[in-house]
């Protein structure tokens, strides 16, 4: 009886041990799109300078326009939205800033409102500051304006 228990324990330990080493090997070989191993902490993102001044042209028709200035210090919360201080009418005329598209004022029932609708309120979700960050992975993306297959 005792030897039987011992044998089972030994077998279990062996199996577990092999499993662990096998897992270890697998985890070591897993390759993600990120440069570092999957189990390690992510490296901090590279810092790119925002390209101020001229606005980059859109790569495809529906692309949200890029922002030609830094936005990281702008407050967007329940109290205020500092983007609107320049880009909402009538400020956009006074500050000579691009006016928010009227589509942003349509609520989910398709009714036009006088204030920017809640589902478009968080500007930075779509409009990001432009910089010359490199692609994270190689890809064959072509801007719609240069893709001769389309136009």
């Amino acid at each position: 009886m005792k030897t039987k228990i011992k044998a089972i324990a030994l077998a279990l330990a062996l199996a577990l041990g092999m499993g662990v080493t096998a897992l270890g090997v697998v985890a070591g070989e897993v390759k993600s799109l990120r440069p570092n191993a999957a189990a390690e902490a992510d490296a901090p993102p590279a810092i790119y300078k925002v390209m101020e001044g001229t606005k980059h042209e859109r790569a495809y028709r529906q692309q949200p326009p890029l922002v030609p200035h830094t936005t990281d210090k702008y407050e967007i919360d329940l109290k205020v939205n500092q983007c609107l201080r320049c880009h909402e009418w009538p400020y956009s005329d006074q500050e000579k800033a691009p006016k928010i598209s009227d589509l942003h004022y349509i609520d989910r029932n398709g009714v036009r409102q006088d204030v920017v609708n809640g589902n478009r309120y968080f500007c930075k979700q779509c409009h990001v500051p432009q910089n010359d960050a490199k692609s994270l992975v190689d890809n064959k993306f072509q801007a719609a304006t240069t893709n001769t297959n389309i136009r």
Partner: protein
Amino acid sequence: MSTENPAKQGVLSGWWSALRSPSSRWSLGMLLVVGFVGGVIFWGGFNTVLELTNTEAFCLSCHEMEQNVYREYRGTIHDSNRSGVRATCPDCHVPRPWIYKIQRKIQASNEVWHKILGTIDTREKFEAKRIELAKHEWARMKSTDSRECRNCHNFGAFDLTRQQARARNRHSEAEQQGKTCIDCHKGIAHQLPAGAFKAERELNDSVGGAVKP
């Protein structure tokens, strides 16, 4: 002259007549030297305490400041930047010229009173008061032509060619129109209150120097 309270009269009028009568015991030179040295020590002590109340650490000794405005200020350009030059609470909120500094310090006794009353001792109370506090500070800055900003940021010392095109255009416009820093730069070190833009328009309409673009 009250004669029914001789003890009180004795002490008070004794001190008073002693102050009024010329000294027969101490020489004039001795009095001058003691008065001068005592004055230096008194003024030094007064100034030391005044400067002690003009430090970031003193401001943060109240939780109202530490838990609200200071935490918002952390990470802004005046707190941390590439060269490590900082502008802390008193640099913006206490004038440097002596007479205005004393004036502000006397006003601040009202803030001590509200500290005792607990006017903003919770986050909710602070948020409810935020618009009023912000309006006070904007009005103060506007009335002094943003004096505290200009301790460091001087229009005359701007090298516009080293600014981004957007900043360059706006700054030269603002200078020509006689605008002051706070007209545009609100909410740079602390969060803005709800209704900030409406309050801004009211301020520009009420205070002289409202400039239309």
